């Protein structure tokens, strides 16, 4: 299945943040969305996830328009991990990840063997099996993020959208999360779209980079020299310089 947008305009109320976006996301692909604060990354992800209405244009999952899908159909096509963290007491990792199975279960949400198996498998894929009965508020930030990813995996959708999954994490955990997503994209053949501020990690791991600038999105493979130059232009300032090859930043004194 393919996600395509056609002259998509996004924003709040009547103010468009971005318009004329023609994007494409394919199965098994890891796409990193990068861009400065406030340029509309979250707005784009929320719009693609169906959490807010687009101002114009269309979003197509396969050949079906997003706004014509009902809530449950949508939940079978895409899952997401939001930037806001969840605060629930006494909720075990297993129970959290199992909620991902809800679109597949009946009205009462009773567990079938298949659902339990898929939940366990999703937990195993993010290497949290040893903590499946721990409460989520006992987990570290990195583990919590992995549990949320497992929930999205359990939902078993062709598209997974993640809003800044590496924020609030230390460097080893950031790298671990991005590498995990990369591995999952290849193993599960799902499409992963994530926004991040970690330029270097994005450039080194993504199949495709979506660079959001003030008036549109420039897309290309991470090895594309023109794109890298654009990234350098977008993020360099008086204080920092960006190495165009790796995305590493250096303070200019």
């Amino acid at each position, binding site marked *: 299945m393919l996600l395509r947008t056609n002259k998509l305009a996004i924003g709040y109320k009547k103010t468009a943040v971005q318009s004329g976006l023609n994007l494409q996301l394919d199965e098994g692909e890891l796409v990193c969305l990068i861009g400065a604060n406030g340029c509309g990354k979250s707005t784009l992800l929320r719009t693609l996830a169906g959490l807010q209405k687009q101002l114009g244009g269309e979003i197509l999952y396969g050949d079906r328009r997003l706004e014509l899908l009902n809530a449950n159909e949508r939940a079978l096509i895409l899952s997401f991990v939001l930037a806001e963290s969840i605060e629930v007491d006494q909720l075990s990792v297993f129970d959290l990840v199992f*909620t991902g199975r809800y679109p597949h279960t009946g009205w009462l*949400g009773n567990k079938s063997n298949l659902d339990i198996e898929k939940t366990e498998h999703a937990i195993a894929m993010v290497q949290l099996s040893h903590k499946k009965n721990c409460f989520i508020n006992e987990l570290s930030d990195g583990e919590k993020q992995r549990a949320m990813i497992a929930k999205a995996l359990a939902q078993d959708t062709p598209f997974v959208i993640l809003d800044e999954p590496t924020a609030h994490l230390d460097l080893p955990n950031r790298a671990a999360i991005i590498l995990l997503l990369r591995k999952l994209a290849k193993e599960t053949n799902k499409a992963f779209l994530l926004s991040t501020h970690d330029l270097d990690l994005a450039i080194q791991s993504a199949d495709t980079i979506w660079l959001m600038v003030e008036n549109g999105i420039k897309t290309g493979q991470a090895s594309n020299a023109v794109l890298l130059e654009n990234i350098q232009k977008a993020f360099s300032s008086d204080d920092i310089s960006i190495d165009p090859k790796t995305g590493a930043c250096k303070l200019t004194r």
Partner: protein
Amino acid sequence: MLKQKKIYNRTPLLFAALSFLCIFFFILDILFGSVSIPLTELTQALWGKNTNSTFYEIIINFRIPKALTAMLAGASLAVAGLLMQTLFRNPLAGPDVLGVSAGAGLGVALFVMAGSLLPLSISGNGWGLVASAITGGIGILLIMLAVSFKIRNSISLLIIGIMFGSMAGALISVIQNYSNPDALKLFVVWTMGSLSAVSWAYMQILAPLVLLGLLLALLIQKQLNGLLLGEHYARGLGISITQIRILIIIATGLLAGAVTAFTGPIAFIGVAVPHLARGLFRSSNHQLIIPASILCGAILLLICDIITQISIYTIPINAISALFGAPLIIWIIIKKK
């Protein structure tokens, strides 16, 4: 592995223990009172053997309806509190804190006292009392719901709920000022909360409403679990937020409204019991916590009712439930820090 074993073995055992306690206190509640009843009389009465004694009269027409009311009221207030806590994602939410009880009180006040000014004598009508309490309770909930679409912050929402509760309280005072003494007395007695006001005739109204509300709550447990993760995630799981909000409000209105109508406002059970249930079962899964809240709520209110009987003069149930519930909530908050 050890932890896993502990959790899964605990659940059926806990349910068995709670069920036993519920039956135990049900019987105890029937036996205790201003007149102590011998156990043999109770067993005979329960076997349907009419001994024609005074005991039989007391058991069948007074003690059993009262104990049943305690169970129904405890269970439904607990579940109503749980629904409110999940809807507002706030551990301190409950039917009384968010103004449902105050709204029901206002409805009853309007009905009993303002109604007494009308030439028609409708105040003694059970259906009218229930309808006015439910209408008042749901009215406040609808206002809160409308506000909750505007205001995302649950603490602000809670404060607004308390403000609406105060406003309803103030309106009640105004109405009290203008009502006749008989109606005023009827209302004041109602506010003290009493489980013994429910006769078998009223039970035929109360029980179906409560059971309907409980059934509704049990049917939406999957959506409730989704709501725990917040609205966005719930929508991402294919749950319709508007639909589930409306269902929660109907269920809460039925449960808290019906019970409050008959027993008067009973404080703190709704806030405290869900925490007790979650703590006991170490889970937030509504599949477990709804039945657990039903049992814990029933047990707690039976215990409260037994305590009200200890003194010669019956203490209002509302006072006992507050004495029990308030420290429980304080303890929960301190433990969390």
